[in-house]
């Protein structure tokens, strides 16, 4: 492939990926309520967005669910990975098979399978109803496998003798785990936690089936907005989210390159 052809091709792919986002950003500043005609610059949709208590509330709901589910999934998943790592090959494969079910299954199937469980449970006990708790459980469930998948390779890559060495020097088992093993697998845990958090924040399908009517996350609110007559508020919201993600990624990227550079420097000295 010639250099120009490569450039053109990359440009077209990126244009395809970013065109809709660009359109949303531009129309978020539209002076009129139209999604095809652009007339005059205005910030009115941003103002409307911040006055919409439903959106703000569902956004904070999303954050709460994402943070809680990521935290719980990270704890359960990390300990699980430690145990799974110690298993014999056959048991480990069995566990990993189950672990992969929520990863591989279509979201809609995972969603309705849990919904059936919750509806069944609610109809039997007549105590709970679909809402915060069912949503939290559902999110933890689809987050856990990703934590396990991130932590397990770090454990496998670690020299097993490191744990033994800590015991050998008189450190009791649990303390050894926290003092020696945990720092080694920390990068995997952090990646797993971040992944769980973003997956949870972004999830629509599983939340849609398991949230009931009382508790809405942001994606559910966005979905109901697409059903209603058009409001450019959705553009303003998307633009803000995009800028937020962009800044976040830039920070992560900068930090990564900086630590990489630091490492290089250290190795040189």
């Amino acid at each position, binding site marked *: 492939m010639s250099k120009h052809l490569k450039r053109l091709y990359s440009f077209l792919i990126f244009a395809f*990926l970013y065109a*809709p986002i660009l359109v949303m950003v531009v129309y978020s500043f539209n002076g009129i309520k139209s999604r095809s005609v652009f007339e005059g610059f205005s910030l009115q949709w941003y103002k409307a967005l911040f006055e919409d208590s439903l959106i703000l509330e569902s956004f904070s709901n999303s954050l709460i669910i994402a943070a809680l589910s990521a935290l719980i999934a990270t704890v359960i998943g990390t*300990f699980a990975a430690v145990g799974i790592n110690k298993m014999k090959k056959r048991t480990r494969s069995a566990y990993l098979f189950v672990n992969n079910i929520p990863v591989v299954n*279509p979201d809609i199937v995972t969603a309705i399978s849990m919904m059936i469980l919750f509806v069944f449970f609610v109809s039997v006990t007549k105590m709970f109803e679909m809402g915060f708790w069912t949503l939290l459980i559902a999110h933890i469930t689809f987050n856990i496998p990703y934590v396990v998948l991130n932590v397990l390779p770090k454990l496998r890559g670690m020299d097993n003798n490191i744990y033994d060495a800590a015991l050998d020097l008189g450190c009791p088992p649990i303390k050894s785990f926290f003092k020696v093993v945990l720092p080694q697998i920390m990068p995997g845990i952090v990646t797993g936690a971040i992944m769980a958090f973003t997956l949870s924040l972004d999830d629509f399908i599983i939340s849609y089936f398991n949230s009931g009517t009382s508790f809405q996350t942001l994606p559910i609110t966005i979905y109901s907005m*697409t059903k209603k007559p058009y409001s450019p508020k959705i553009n303003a919201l998307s633009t803000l*989210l995009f800028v937020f*993600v962009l800044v976040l990624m830039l920070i992560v990227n900068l930090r990564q390159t900086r630590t990489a550079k630091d490492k290089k420097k250290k190795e040189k000295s």
Partner: protein
Amino acid sequence: MMKTKKPFFSAKNLTVTPYAVWMVLFVLIPIGLVVYFAFTDANGTFTLENLSYIKRYAETFWLSVELALISTVICLLLAYPMAFIIAKMPTERQGSAILLIMLPMWMNFLIRTYAWMTILENNGIINRFVGMIAQWLQIEFEGFSMINTNGAIVLGMVYNYLPYMILPIYTVLTKIDNSLIEAARDLGSSSVHVFRRIIAPLSVPGVISGITMVFVPAVSTFIISYLLGGGKTYLIGNIIENYFLGSSGAINYNVGAALSLLLMILIVVSMGIMNHFDKDSESVGGGMIV
């Protein structure tokens, strides 16, 4: 004399217990319930009647598979060259390129799909734009009808899932040992030959996991078909959704469960076929970036 003294629940594996309990409660039991509901009626008695609905929706199933397959193929055709171009970039630039590929994925896919609505609509941006040109050229233009077609759904699928295809292929391409390529060149291979005999076969695991990562969500989607198909085109995802969350008269968990079960079997079978092509990599999603 062989004796296993280790108890089933040895102390060191207590760390797995919460996980094991959780996975049984919220993954295995729910799937069991799907199977149970698929084979029972509203009163809980055994029936095969729900399965007869599969026949009724055979056409929908076929359409879902067809659209998902078309999207997967288009994704593959678009993604492979892109992944290849990125993998051949200088290392410092690869990171930023991948970041740019992933960035749209971080936007909620509802929003991304919704944006296409704006673009494809009858009086959307494309039609307005072409209309303006037509007017300028004084040509009669009635507007393309793009939204609410199968084409729009395929576009939405390709747009949403293209990064899922690029990333795993890119990952395996970067992992190919450069000395292999050099060795092949050394033995007198042309670049086409090197690609056909070395790069292509070695990138199979990435392609396989890319195909899985695109096909599975595409075949089961109900949002893309809902937003871009305008309710005219029902895919199997929409049918299932309707049986669980539709208007109260339409709700029927048993039929929904039966259809979901079929969807699940479809995925398992297609993954089985895929793994047949990719015997070497043992884990699910061999090239998946996590």
